[in-house]
């Protein structure tokens, strides 16, 4: 696209109405609009407030455990025989994934706005656990909407949320996955808009959520830049992250967008394979632009504009849309988005576990799968950074079932 050659920066979006090119926006019911506008203002004010940023930073240092390490995966690199692979260890964060970065930011904002009740949607349960955690930490009631199918395949996380004091609502509409959980969370929000803060877990939804969640997650990429400069004295050649809604990916990508020598790859859920109709959750590779959940973005949908459910082995990637900034980065050509199948993710899950002693979340295993494909084709002096967005403890039941082990 010609836009790619004329842009001075890929980091200035969105515009004041929340658009990244044609993507983004605020497509919500009128009931929510006054609150969305209030949220936009509250976030802009908070963002510029040193006290807000200071409190977030302090919490990250002692509660989240930031900065997360950048780890040289020496054995994996040697095993693949090509580029040096570094892992950004977001799975070591408190609660086991990158989701806490966003939740801490949003709970501080909810408190500033005087909201008294938090709701959230969750797929794999990582965002639900992170939401329940910050609600416990700050003393807020928390209700989490989770597809009934996901409740079944992510039982450990459901119990964790309940231990943390959250109420988990299984959602039976649709296929009972993340999309349906988000619909139900929005229905709750419309009903309780005056008291309730909706803690969206990914860089999608109506403006300002995509930009706000990206900002809170950009701590990943900002740290990675400093860390790789400290150990290698230069930026990486390739940055890889898994993309469902895309919050961990935009968090590590954004600080590198204006470095033309850094190639950036997002990995979508290829499920059973891109040739299987409704058998994957790769919105960019297998969808087209549409409007859902408050924003225009690439969506899995049929010819009549009805949304498809999609499929992924990973509950966290099993979503028919993607954050609007990713749609824009894909159309401008700045970031490449490729699929990895369930099988490739499963193989990568086992490889990383056996070679490095790190059990990745099935979501993150998609990114590892891409590194496994690319590293052997790159030189030994080249550098790949993979965002290891979550740990895989929650997935051992799913993986066990597939491998024929009854837990």
């Amino acid at each position, binding site marked *: 696209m010609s836009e790619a050659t004329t842009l001075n920066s890929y980091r200035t979006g969105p515009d004041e*109405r929340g658009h990244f090119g044609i993507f983004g*926006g*605020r*497509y*919500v*019911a*009128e*009931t*929510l*609009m*006054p*609150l969305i506008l209030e949220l936009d203002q509250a976030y802009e004010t908070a963002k510029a407030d040193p006290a807000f940023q200071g409190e977030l930073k302090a919490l990250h240092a002692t509660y989240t455990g930031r900065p997360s390490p950048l780890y040289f995966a020496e054995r994996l690199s040697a095993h693949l025989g090509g580029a040096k692979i570094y892992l950004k260890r977001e799975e070591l964060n408190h609660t086991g994934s990158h989701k806490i970065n966003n939740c801490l930011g949003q709970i501080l904002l909810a408190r500033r706005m005087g909201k008294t009740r938090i709701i959230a949607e969750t797929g794999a349960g990582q965002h639900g656990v992170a939401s329940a955690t910050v609600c416990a930490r700050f003393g807020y009631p928390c209700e989490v909407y989770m597809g009934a199918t996901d409740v079944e395949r992510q039982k450990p996380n459901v119990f964790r949320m309940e231990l943390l004091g959250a109420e988990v609502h299984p959602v039976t*509409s*649709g296929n009972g996955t993340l*999309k349906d959980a988000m*619909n139900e969370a*929005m*229905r709750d929000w*419309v*009903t*309780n*808009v*005056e008291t309730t803060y909706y803690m969206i877990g990914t860089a999608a939804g109506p403006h300002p959520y995509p930009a706000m969640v990206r900002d809170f997650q950009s701590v990943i990429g900002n740290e990675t830049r400093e860390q790789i400069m400290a150990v290698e004295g230069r930026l990486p050649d390739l940055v890889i992250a898994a993309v469902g809604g895309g919050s961990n990916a935009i968090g590590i990508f954004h600080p590198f967008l204006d470095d033309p020598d850094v190639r950036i790859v997002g990995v979508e859920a290829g499920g059973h394979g891109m040739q299987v109709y409704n058998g994957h959750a790769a919105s960019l590779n297998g969808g087209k632009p*549409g*409007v*859902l*959940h*408050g924003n225009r973005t690439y*969506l899995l*949908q049929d*010819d*009549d*504009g*009805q*949304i498809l459910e999609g499929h992924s082995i990973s509950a966290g990637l099993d979503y028919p849309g993607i954050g609007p900034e990713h749609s824009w980065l894909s159309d401008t050509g700045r970031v490449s988005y490729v699929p990895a199948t369930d099988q490739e993710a499963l193989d990568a899950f086992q490889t990383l576990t056996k070679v490095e002693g790190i059990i990745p979340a099935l979501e993150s295993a998609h990114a590892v799968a891409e590194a496994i494909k690319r590293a052997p084709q790159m030189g030994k002096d080249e550098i790949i950074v993979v965002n290891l967005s979550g740990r895989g403890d929650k997935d051992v039941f799913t993986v066990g079932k597939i491998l024929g082990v009854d837990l």
Partner: protein
Amino acid sequence: MSSLPVTRIDARLAKLRDEGRAALVTFVTAGDPDTETSLSILKALPGAGADIIEFGMPFSDPMAEGPPIQAADIRALAAGQTMVKTLEQVRAFRAGDNETPIVLMGYYNPIYIYGVERFVADAKAAGVDGLIVVDLPPEEDEELCLPAIRAGISFIRLATPTSDEKRLPVLLKNSSGFVYYVSVLGVTGVKSAAAGDVAAAVARIKAHTPLPVMVGFGVKTGEQAAAIAAHADGVVVGSALVNAVRDSLVDGKATAATVKAVADLVADLSAGVRRGRS
């Protein structure tokens, strides 16, 4: 502006004003429970007492609907309803009724995928008078609202309990036909508002617009309709009607009782609306 042609919505509302009564606005989902029965229901509505028809364009993810309309959308889509079929049904209805206004109601994505310019042209040609698109606030007016108005289709806005004095002028700016006041916070078909609250809200909206104000959400019976009709220009009923469809089905299929079940409820609601101001 006197040069504008009088729309079916304006003509119908002027007639009701002369009669001194409120309007009954009925919502049913296009294609529920199947295309043929849905058209029979549509054709039966005016005779049963519907003054304005809201015809729902089914969507896989109706985020502002409660369980009744969610279920109706699922039934319609499972029976193979498409946007093309919905517009065909309007055309078939228009062949026998050139006066009852039809407002298509739904979500933006199926329209966006159909193509906005093609949609407004085809909808106008089929005899559609207005649109209510739940997820298009005034901030996104360039998307569909302005093209619809240019094509001669009214764009009807939802006002809600969160629409304050600052917000009302923004949302009323490009709206036409009537204003649909969503009388409770929440999704369709669950809660209902107290008549006193409705009266105050209608007065608040009317201070900002000459447009008639229809009130909906949670109205299920003729009695409730009568209470709302005393304070508003019209009453909107949807979930109760799609529940009447649901309750008439056997093994998910329409029966001889389906059309009559809807028509009987509409007749009861219509009687309620008519006695609301007497």
